[in-house]
Each structure stands twice: as structure tokens, then as C-alpha cells.
């Protein structure tokens, strides 16, 4: 056993060397990889309808990843009947449309399961680089697509994809505002609250979902556990609690508690006990707490300097430091899971809301959106590569995704005209 362990330890660095990522995402020279996704080969007529849904979701995942230049199928020159193995593929025809990577996949159905086998080829040398077999429920074909996309993403980057984590948001319907949970791309949406005013949902580890609700006439915090039980965090009469945020380990929650004319940041255990006040400004507002990925710091918004700005403090309330100095209205901070950046919403001199990131150590501010309606409420993907946000560029407030550098803006598919706000991407 010891010998086995020792040999494993010896082999690990070698394995790591052999597993160097194909796509290096960081760096100024990053260029998306031109990738051709061929239409799925299906077996059996009943797979056809699911195939369109799988294909649609897979195309969206690959496009939204920011890693790939997904080639237009209208340009394809290959024979539609071309096979799945390197020997049967005419790589010259794929090279002629500019592809450097080729993904071919088949879909089959076995009972209630939908199965996909995908193969990734290097067009330049005509070799099969990687293959994966995945399965998912026939009723939710897009979930199978996310698994295939995740495998492809991992193959190229050696890091987890953002495609398997859920999102939550608030959807307006008449006078109601309800919390919904959906797959990362907005598909398979499930309504969590039933009517009334429900706001500021947040996903925590272990499928915890927290939100603010006016069920009892004033804003209170609720946490729904994985089994579906929902608890209300205790507050005193007259206290208004809003904007819950789970610590990365899920053991603590931060929120804003308002009384009289001021709002302060508090931290409590996940069940609401052991609450402790972190900020203490006599007047003014401290709100929108956001945890750092190591759980040691909390970003928040405070108007103690005269206008709402993003501040950072230690998780015990010490070491408060102002982080943003540009503009006079910065809010909704969201800490990148990579730890280096905080994304936030800023209102500029034209009264338009746009998204920025600020580097936590250097204070360097980078603009992500401009001249495309109001863009608000950024939320990083679990791997920190993408940002989910709301935008009014197409009319009502809708969900969009872009890269953390502000590139490749895409509206999530299938949104109706309902107004959607305050998205949060689960970890």
C-alpha cells in the first residue's frame, strides 16, 4: 500500500505535466480557439426532438465560455454523413472553414436516459484528442448538454466549467416578485416562492438558498435547506434584515440590519444564532455584504464617505478600507471566486448604470459595459471566468452573461418579457 502511495506521489507531477491546459485563458495574447461543433448524429427517431434541445444548449455553453470561436455551421463543407472516427473524417474540409478543433457527438436514448458520446479532434494533426460519454434525463436535455460542455471545457482548461452550477434571481410578475432557481443558462427554471415580495436571493454551499421576504410585513431573511424546509432568521421587532450572503463554507451568513436611520452589517451562524454586528456608523447605510472566497474578508457598500462606495473589511469587522473612489454611486459588490477582483455596479455622470471590476489589492478599476442600457448586479461564475448580470439593452431587465474581462455579451436564452433582477450564481 505504501509503495503504491509513494509511486502515486512520484507520478503526480508527471501527470500534471502531461495535463497542461490546451487553452491558457490568462494573458493579453489570449485568442479564442476556432471550434466547429458538428450537428449531432442521432440514432432512433425519438431522439430527434431532444437532439435539437441538447444541440442548442451545447452551442450556447461553448459560445458563452469565451474560450471558443464557435464556427458558423452555414460555412461547413464536410459531408453530412461523415463519421465519428479520425479515419473517417476529412480534416482538410474542416481546416478550410477555419476550424482548429472539431467536436463530433452522437445522441442515443435508453429508456428515460439520454446519452451523448462526444469526441474532440485536433484538425491540424487529424488526431482524436479526447472523448467523453455522458448521460442525463430525457426530460431535461439541456442538462446533458451542460455535462458535455463541462467535459470539453475541462479538457481544454484543466479547470471546472461554470456550466453545472445553478443560478437564482427574482422575477417580477404583476405586483409579485418571486425567487426562482434555474440552470446556469436560465433553462429548467423552478419557482421557489409563491407570491408576495421576495428579494435578493443568494445561493450557498450544500444547496442552501437564502432570500429576503416581506411575508410578515417587513423584510426578513429566510433560508431554504436542501430538503425544502425553510427557516426564518430571528430579528427583533422593527429591525429590517436584507441581503443575505453565505460564507464560502456555508457556516455563516452576512446581511444588513436596518433600524431607525442606519443600516449595519451583521454576521450570524447559518441558523441565525450568534449574531454579531460588524459595522458601527451612527448614521448612514452599510449594506450589500459579499464574502471573499477564503471567507476572511467581506466587501460591502457604505455611504459613510458621503456617497455609496465599496469598502472591504475583515470578517470580524476590523480593518475597514475604502476600495472605490471613482464616481459617486457604487453598489452591489460581488467578490470573484479567484479572489483578485470585485465586480460592482456604478452609476455614471449620465445616470446610466454600468459594470466595473476593481482589483482588491491595487484598486485598479476596469470597465466591463458601456452604452448598452443599464447593466447591474454582477455575479461571478464559480470559476471566476464569467459574469452574470442584468441589462436593459433589449427592453426589460434581462439576464446576460459575459467574460470577466467584459467581452462576449450574450443574453441567456428563452427569456420572456418579464423583468428579472438580482441574479446570483451558485458556487
Amino acid at each position, binding site marked *: 500500500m505504501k509503495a503504491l502511495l509513494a509511486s502515486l506521489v512520484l507520478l503526480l507531477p508527471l501527470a500534471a505535466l502531461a495535463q497542461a491546459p490546451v487553452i491558457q485563458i490568462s494573458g493579453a495574447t489570449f485568442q479564442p480557439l*476556432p471550434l466547429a461543433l458538428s450537428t449531432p448524429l442521432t440514432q432512433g427517431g425519438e431522439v430527434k426532438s431532444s437532439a435539437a434541445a441538447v444541440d442548442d444548449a451545447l452551442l450556447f455553453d461553448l459560445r458563452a465560455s469565451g474560450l471558443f*470561436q464557435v*464556427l*458558423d455551421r*452555414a*460555412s461547413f*463543407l*464536410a459531408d453530412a454523413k461523415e463519421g465519428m472516427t479520425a479515419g473517417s473524417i*476529412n480534416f*482538410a*474540409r474542416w*481546416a*478550410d*472553414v*477555419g*476550424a482548429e478543433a472539431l467536436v463530433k457527438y452522437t445522441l442515443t436514448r435508453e429508456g428515460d436516459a439520454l446519452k451523448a458520446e462526444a469526441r474532440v479532434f485536433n484538425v491540424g494533426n487529424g488526431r482524436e484528442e479526447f472523448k467523453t460519454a455522458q448521460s442525463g434525463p430525457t426530460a431535461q436535455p439541456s442538462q446533458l448538454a451542460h455535462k458535455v460542455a463541462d467535459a470539453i471545457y475541462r479538457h481544454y482548461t484543466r479547470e471546472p466549467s461554470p456550466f453545472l452550477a445553478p443560478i437564482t434571481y427574482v422575477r417580477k410578475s404583476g405586483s409579485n416578485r418571486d425567487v426562482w432557481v434555474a440552470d446556469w443558462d436560465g433553462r429548467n427554471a423552478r419557482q421557489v416562492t409563491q407570491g408576495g415580495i421576495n428579494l435578493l436571493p443568494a445561493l450557498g454551499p450544500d444547496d442552501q438558498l437564502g432570500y429576503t421576504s416581506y411575508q410578515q410585513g417587513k423584510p426578513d431573511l429566510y433560508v431554504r435547506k436542501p430538503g425544502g424546509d425553510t427557516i426564518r432568521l430571528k430579528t427583533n421587532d422593527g429591525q429590517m434584515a436584507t441581503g443575505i450572503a453565505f460564507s464560502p463554507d456555508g457556516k455563516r451568513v452576512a446581511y444588513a440590519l436596518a433600524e431607525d436611520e442606519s443600516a449595519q452589517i451583521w454576521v450570524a451562524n447559518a441558523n441565525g444564532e450568534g449574531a454579531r454586528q460588524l459595522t458601527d456608523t451612527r448614521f448612514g447605510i452599510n449594506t450589500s455584504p459579499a464574502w471573499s472566497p477564503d471567507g476572511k474578508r467581506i466587501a460591502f457598500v457604505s455611504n459613510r464617505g458621503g456617497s455609496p462606495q465599496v469598502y472591504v473589511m475583515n470578517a470580524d469587522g476590523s480593518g475597514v478600507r475604502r476600495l472605490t473612489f471613482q464616481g459617486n454611486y457604487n453598489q452591489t459588490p460581488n467578490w470573484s471566486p479567484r479572489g483578485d477582483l470585485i465586480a460592482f455596479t456604478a452609476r455614471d455622470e449620465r445616470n446610466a448604470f454600468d459594470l466595473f471590476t476593481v482589483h482588491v489589492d491595487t484598486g485598479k478599476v476596469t470597465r466591463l459595459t458601456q452604452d448598452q442600457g443599464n447593466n447591474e448586479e454582477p455575479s461571478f461564475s464559480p470559476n471566476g471566468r464569467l459574469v452574470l448580470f442584468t441589462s436593459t439593452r433589449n427592453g426589460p431587465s434581462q439576464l446576460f452573461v459575459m467574460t470577466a474581462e467584459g467581452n462576449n455579451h450574450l443574453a441567456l436564452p428563452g427569456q420572456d418579457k418579464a423583468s428579472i433582477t438580482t441574479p446570483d450564481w451558485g458556487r
Partner: protein
Amino acid sequence: MGMGSNKGSGRVTMSEINVTPMVDVMLVLLIIFMVTAPLIQQGVKVNLPEARAAAVEASDKKLVLSIDAQRRVYLGEAEVLMAELEKKLATNAKAQADKELYLHADRDVPYGVVVDVMAAAQRAGITNVGMITDPSAGGRASASSKGKKEARR
């Protein structure tokens, strides 16, 4: 004296041929590369026009559009219908990145067909079209050289 013929507000009839569209096409295709055929291996058999001109080094694999003697059009090795050519080129990531195309047309293809193909390429946003010619018998426009270029793969 030109004024004399322009009486009143009547318009002057142009009697010349309107060459503007042709000039448009040709201006866009101003940069013409002469490429030696063996540099680019293609599966379509074409009798190339012969010309003595310096060869341009093709650094990497370029997109080649071939027209064979039967006027069939090929992008690389894949036959493309003339009606679809513009769309195929407009969506082709390689063509759009390079804005460049090499034309490999059989010497027996009428000039009009070549111009049609060039115009489709122009509409698809391709600004540089290089002509592939065969330099080996350059300038000797003799019938005897015809046919011996059939050996291409």
C-alpha cells in the same frame, strides 16, 4: 464647348458602356498574387492558365477556390453550388479572418464565370483574390501544353 450640347434642363444621354461595376470589382481585386500551383495541393483537377510571373511564397495553407472545366466550383475539395458560394464565404471563419482567397480556375472557364465567382467573393467581404497560374510554360500560349497539367493529384 461641352456646355453647348447641354441645352436647357434636358439630360445628356451617356453613350459609353458603364464600366463602373467592372472597375469596382477589379479595384477590389487589385492585389493579385501569382502563386505556383504545386505549393497548394488540391484535389480538383484544373488546367491552369500559364503565365511567367514571380511566385509568391504561401506561408501557410490558404483557402483555395477552384473552378473546373465544367464550371463546377469547389471550396478546398468540397463542391459548392454557385448559389451558395457567397454565403459559404461570408460565414467562413478562415476567409473572413484572412480576407483572402486563391482562385484556381481552369483555363477553359469563360471569363464571365470567373468574374461571377470574384464578385461573389467580393460581396462576401473578401478583398484579396490571388490567381493561381502555372509558371512552367509561361508565355508560350500553345495548345500543346494543354493537358499535361492533368497530373495534379
